[in-house]
């Protein structure tokens, strides 16, 4: 493998031949560079898409800081090179390297991939290939880096099981230290690669696919998952932190323009709304908040250390933050004169949100966003996101009259049992919003309608349902295209191929690994990029391995079906999800679970952690004597 000096001198020849070479050189403000020889463990964190997107990923930022805080380890970064750079690197035999020290990735001890969504899978393979690391876990030995992954997509790790040595399930703040320490003791003893994998499997929250066997029934569904060593965990329960640690503030400041040029401060983790389609809402429980003072101080220190002009308060549902009004006032007081732009995503649809946004005083160029997701009362009850039309219209009216000219509305089609009438209602509601806007501000009023297609995600109450077929999706999109024709309405929708690919990959089992490999080999990469469509490659890859893609997506699941992800536990019980699915069929709404506990399973699963972090730290209401379940046993 080339050393850093060799890599740098080859790079100098190619950097000026590619677009945006600043992506590939590092050297940004606030990076950490340690002496390679002085630390035991070298970790490279990889976001498998381009720098422009990956640099703002907060999860990796947290892990980067966690590892660099250790005197015995260093963390560096790598991203996927864009097509032009990949070509230049391959033809000049430059292996993929880290931005900080320019060491080849193959020289690291641990490669940690962030996999927040499924369409990054082929990029992850491409990165291993560019790094000169064997793709399949079983082909690697003790001389290769340990390859691990974490992130929301890893709640169904099986489509990537053949390539990753281990997955870290859940929140990374603590587990990353366990992994580094296990790696250090293994290295000290000079054991085999298998010894390392077995040691890793003893860390709660670490899933090592090679020590579990999957058995199938004749119909292709799973019969059961078997652990191959007796003291492995089954199920593998996610890790969480009881109290959110201080948020990162020394953000790396890119020297080139990137997609999200801003500081992000996580206000809270988890969501209590219980929307039944929402993967994040189910897997990130319980809800834990930071204090107003902690958030404001973090924002201030981050702005000081970065000089960014924009900051974003992150959470799954900003309006549900207990002290949201206080927070917005405190921010106004602290930063009112500083010409900063603050974004507050995922606000509830009500007039309070308009007031909040108004107080933050930034509307330049952006629209006011509403996400009702469905447009009929029936459908809203089914998805458990119940907002009456009148409330939506009132919010839109308030936004138009407070100076916004564009309302952005987000809907999904393809919800379970959706009919033409439910889709037509989307068009009707959008037209009503525009009518209100015209009445209030005349011809300037605009509506941007964004219509996604529902994918039944693992670990949600809808995991039993089938996806719409391409024909159904097309018919529904046609209704919208036909009925939303006003020149002040802009309609965007998700390409059917993108939805299907996301659905296959998120619902896949172990057999999908070979499909992912074949698709990558035949040229699939950057699958999250709409201009990189390689749909036929994917269909061919399924055919190559004798698999029917429809098996994964267009099939209503049996009530007692064992899912390929059942052995991975987000702490929420499968039974709870099933009850909630049943309630959905009956059109029964469940209110915010801060008000009433529906016993999703989080409290008994993490009873010890809850006891250590009592009272207001978690927003779960008090329940009588939670049943104790030792970590790792069957919930």
């Amino acid at each position: 493998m080339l050393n850093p000096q060799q890599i740098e001198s080859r790079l100098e020849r190619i950097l000026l031949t590619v677009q945006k070479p600043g992506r590939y050189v590092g050297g940004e403000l606030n990076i950490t560079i340690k002496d390679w020889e002085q630390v035991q463990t070298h970790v490279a964190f990889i976001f498998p898409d381009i720098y422009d997107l990956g640099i703002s990923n907060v999860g990796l930022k947290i892990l980067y800081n966690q590892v660099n805080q250790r005197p015995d380890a260093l963390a560096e970064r790598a991203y996927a090179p864009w097509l032009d750079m990949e070509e230049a690197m391959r033809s000049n035999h430059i292996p993929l390297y880290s931005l900080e020290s320019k060491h080849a990735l193959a020289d690291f001890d641990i490669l940690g991939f962030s996999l927040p969504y499924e369409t990054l899978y082929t990029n992850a393979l491409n990165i291993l290939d560019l790094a000169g690391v064997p793709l399949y876990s079983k082909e690697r030995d003790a001389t290769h880096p340990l390859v691990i992954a974490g992130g929301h997509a890893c709640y169904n790790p099986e489509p990537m099981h053949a390539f990753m040595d281990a997955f870290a399930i859940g929140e990374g703040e603590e587990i990353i230290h366990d992994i580094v320490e296990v790696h250090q003791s293994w290295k000290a003893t000079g054991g085999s690669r298998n010894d390392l994998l077995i040691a890793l499997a003893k860390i709660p929250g670490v899933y090592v696919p090679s020590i579990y066997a999957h058995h199938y029934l004749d119909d292709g569904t799973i019969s059961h998952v078997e652990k191959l060593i007796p003291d492995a965990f089954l199920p593998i329960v996610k890790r969480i932190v009881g109290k959110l640690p201080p948020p990162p503030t020394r953000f790396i400041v890119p020297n080139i323009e990137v997609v999200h040029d801003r500081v992000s401060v996580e206000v809270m983790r988890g969501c209590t709304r219980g929307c039944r389609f929402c993967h994040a809402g189910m897997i990130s429980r319980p809800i834990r908040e930071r204090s107003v003072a902690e958030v404001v101080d973090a924002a201030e220190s981050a702005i000081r250390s970065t000089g960014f002009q924009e900051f974003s308060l992150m959470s799954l549902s900003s309006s549900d933050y207990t002290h949201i009004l206080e927070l917005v006032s405190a921010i106004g007081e602290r930063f009112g004169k500083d010409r900063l732009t603050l974004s507050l995503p995922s606000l509830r649809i009500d007039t309070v949100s308009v007031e909040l946004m108004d107080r933050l005083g930034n509307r330049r160029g952006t629209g006011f966003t509403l996400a009702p997701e469905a447009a009929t009362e029936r459908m809203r009850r089914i998805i458990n996101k119940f907002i009456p039309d009148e409330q939506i219209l009132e919010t839109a009216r308030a936004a138009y009259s407070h100076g916004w000219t564009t309302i952005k509305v987000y809907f999904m089609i393809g919800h379970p049992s959706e009919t033409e009438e439910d889709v037509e209602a989307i068009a009707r509601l959008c037209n009503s919003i525009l009518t209100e806007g015209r009445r209030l501000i005349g011809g300037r009023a605009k509506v941007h309608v964004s219509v996604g297609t529902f994918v039944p995600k693992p670990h949600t109450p809808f995991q039993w349902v089938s996806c719409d077929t391409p024909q159904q999706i097309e018919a529904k999109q046609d209704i919208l295209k036909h009925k939303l024709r006003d020149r002040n309405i802009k309609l965007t929708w998700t390409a059917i191929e993108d939805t299907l690919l996301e659905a296959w990959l998120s619902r896949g089992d172990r057999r999908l690994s070979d499909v992912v490999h074949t698709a990558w080999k035949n040229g699939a990469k950057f699958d999250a990029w709409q201009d990189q469509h390689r749909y036929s490659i994917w269909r061919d890859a399924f055919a190559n391995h004798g698999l029917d893609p429809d098996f994964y997506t267009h099939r209503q699941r049996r009530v007692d079906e064992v899912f390929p992800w059942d052995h991975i536990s987000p702490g929420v019980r499968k039974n709870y999800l099933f009850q909630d699915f049943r309630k959905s069929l009956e059109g029964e709404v469940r209110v915010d679970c801060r008000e009433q506990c529906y016993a999703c399973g989080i409290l008994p699963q993490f009873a010890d952690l809850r006891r250590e972090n009592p009272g207001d730290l978690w927003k779960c209401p008090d329940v009588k004597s939670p049943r104790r379940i030792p970590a790792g046993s069957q919930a």
Partner: protein
Amino acid sequence: MRLRITFSKSGTLRYTGHLDLHRIWERTCRRAGIPLSYSQGFHPQPRISLAAALPLGFIGQAELVDLWLDQDEDLNQILKDLQAAAPPGLMLTSIQSIDPQQPALQTQVNSADYEVVFLDPVDPLHVTSSLTGILSCVSIPRQRRGKDYDLRPLLKSLELIRTDNENSPILTMRLSVSPSATGRPEEVLAELGFSPENTRITRTRLILDNG
């Protein structure tokens, strides 16, 4: 007050373009707590003005930027604060307070000096003879982005300087800089038969009208 800062741009910052450099100055000032003035109008912008765009990949040894401040401040303190807040690769070398009524910095630049290092060994005799050839031409017609132009009048000087290593001479040149006619060192290199990827180019000096 209006400040003129001389700075160098090197290291990985070579690969940061002009617009991004503008943003870097903006952020550096914000981190340093320097009270920049803002333009009037609907989208107020901080008043930062760079002398002349440095092409991507070039090292800048003595680049110039003007900053406008809302109030008078101690120059040494500003220099210290800005340097502490600057990203790797941005080094401030001097600061002076200038007459706010001076014309825009861009309009004051009339030419620039460049130094070119070759990444591969070259034959100095061969290069020297090409130089002589170019300098003796009355006109060097070229095309850039589909437009015809004459490179010769933009080229004010061109010299090959020997170093200790026989095969690594340094090429220096002075080219004119103006909104309508800016000479580019890559174009000169192309005339000499070199591709810019195999060289390292430094802009060593910006020459202003009265300097």
